[in-house]
C-alpha cells in the first residue's frame, strides 16, 4: 500500500531531519515509500519545498534537498 501524501511528506521530512547526511538526493527519498513511483516522490518533495519544510541546495550541476535547519548555507558561512 502506498503511503498517503501526508504520510509520505512526514516520512520525507523525518528522513531529512535524521539522516546522517544533511543534504539528500531525490533518490535518497525513494526509500520513504518503496511503493511510490519516483515522480510521486518528486512531486511530494517539491510540495514540501513550497511549504518551506525542505529547501533546495544546488552546486549548479547537482541539486539536493535539505531540512532548512541543516542546509549548508554559504550566506551564513561568510
Amino acid at each position: 500500500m502506498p503511503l498517503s501524501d501526508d504520510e509520505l511528506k512526514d516520512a520525507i521530512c523525518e528522513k531529512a531531519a535524521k539522516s546522517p547526511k544533511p543534504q539528500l538526493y531525490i533518490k535518497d527519498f525513494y526509500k520513504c515509500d518503496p511503493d511510490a513511483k519516483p515522480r510521486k516522490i518528486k512531486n511530494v518533495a517539491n510540495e514540501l519545498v513550497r511549504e518551506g519544510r525542505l529547501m533546495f541546495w544546488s552546486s549548479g550541476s547537482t541539486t539536493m534537498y535539505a531540512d532548512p535547519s541543516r542546509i549548508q548555507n554559504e550566506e551564513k558561512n561568510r
Partner: protein
Amino acid sequence: MAKHETPLLDQLEGGPWPSFVSDLKHQAETKPEVYDILGQLELSYKDRITHWKHGGIVGVFGYGGGIVGRYSDVPEQFPGVEHFHTIRVAQPASKYYSTENLRKLMDLWEKHGSGVTNMHGSTGDIILLGCRTEALEPFFWDLTHDMGQDLGGSGSNLRTPECCLGQSRCEWACYDTQETCYHLTLHYQDEIHRPAFPYKFKFKFSGCANDCVAAIARSDISVIGTWRDEIRIDQAAVKEYVAGNYPANGGSHSGRDWGPFDIQKEVIDLCPTECMWMEGDELKIDDKECTRCMHCINVMPRALRPGADQGASVLVGAKAPILDGAQMSTLIVPFMKVEKENEYEELIEFIETVWDWWMEVGKNRERVGETMQRIGLNNFIKIMGLEPIPQMIRIPRENPYVFWAEEEVEGGFDRDIDEFRARHAA
C-alpha cells in the same frame, strides 16, 4: 566602486574581434560594479587562477534550478562582485527577439543585476551574470510579472531545451523544431524548475542530419529530422549546377578557386553509401540505400531537397566526458513522426518511458547514457518496449559472450549431475 588598473586586460582591446574588455569598461561607466568585475578578472589574469568560490545555495523560492550561486574569494578587494550569482533565463525557441523584448530585459537586468550577460549560454539560456542574493526574488518578480518570462534549468533538472532555427529559415527542416521545443518546454516546466532526476537531462532538436544545434553530441535525448521517402530532385537545377550556373554548396566555398564544379567528385564520390550516379545528364539516386547524410543536398541546395514524408530520428545518451568519457547519442527510434496535431504524443511517451526508468535505476550523478551503458543496450531496448533492430547498432557484437535466458534453452538450466555421470565417467 572605483576603477582598477587593468594593464593585462587592456591588451585585449586591440585586434579585429569584438573586445569584451572594451564593452565591460563602457558598461562600467554607468554600472560601477562592473569595475570590480574587471578588477577581479585582472587579478585572475595576474594570478592565472579563478577567484570564484565554489557555488552554493541560492535560488528563487520553490525553484531548484535556474540560478547558479557564486561568491568572490577576494570580496574585500572587489565588493561589487561579492555575490555574483548567475540567472539562467529561458530563451525563446531558436533565439529570435524583438528589440522591445530585449530592451525590457536589459532594463530589468541593469536594475537588479550587474548589467553583464552571455547571449547565450552553452545550453541556450540567456545568461545574466552577477546578481546579489537579495536581488534574486525582486528580479524574478519583475521577470514573471512585467515580462511574462521565466527561468531556465540547472542542477539535477531537465535543462532548458534548445533547437536549431528549423523551418523558420531553413529549407531542410524535417519537422518543426521550434514548436516541438516550445511545446515540450512548457509541458515540462515542473521538471525544468524542480529537481526530479538523478542528474541533469537535456533535450535538443535539430531539423536535419546537419544537426546545427549539436544535439547528437550534447543532449540526453536528441531529436534529429529525417525523411523516409525519396530525395526530391529538380533535374533542371542539376543541369545548372553541372553547367556551373549555380554555386556549389550554396556558395560556401566561394572564397577560393576550387576549379569548376564536378558533380562526380564533389557529390557522387563523396556520398557515403555510393548510391548516386549520373545517367546522361540526369542524377539518379537509389534512395533505399541512402542514409540521408545531407551531403548531396548541402552541395546542391537548389536541385535536391529532403523527401516529403518527414519525421525525426530519436537518439539517446549524449554527454560530455565527466565521468566515464564522452558519449554521442545512440539511435533508438530510427523514424518517428513529430507532429503538433497529436501534441507530440509519441515523443512524449518515449521521453517519459526513459524518465520513469532512469529516475528509478539511475544512480546519483549518472547521466542516462551512462545508465544505458551500465545496464546494456539490450536491456534498455526492452525497457523502452522496443524491438531490437540493426539500426540501433553500428556493428553486431564481436565477442561470443551471449547471455541466454533459461527459458530460451531447451530443458532449462537444471541438470542432474548424477544422471550426467552415469553417462560420462568422471
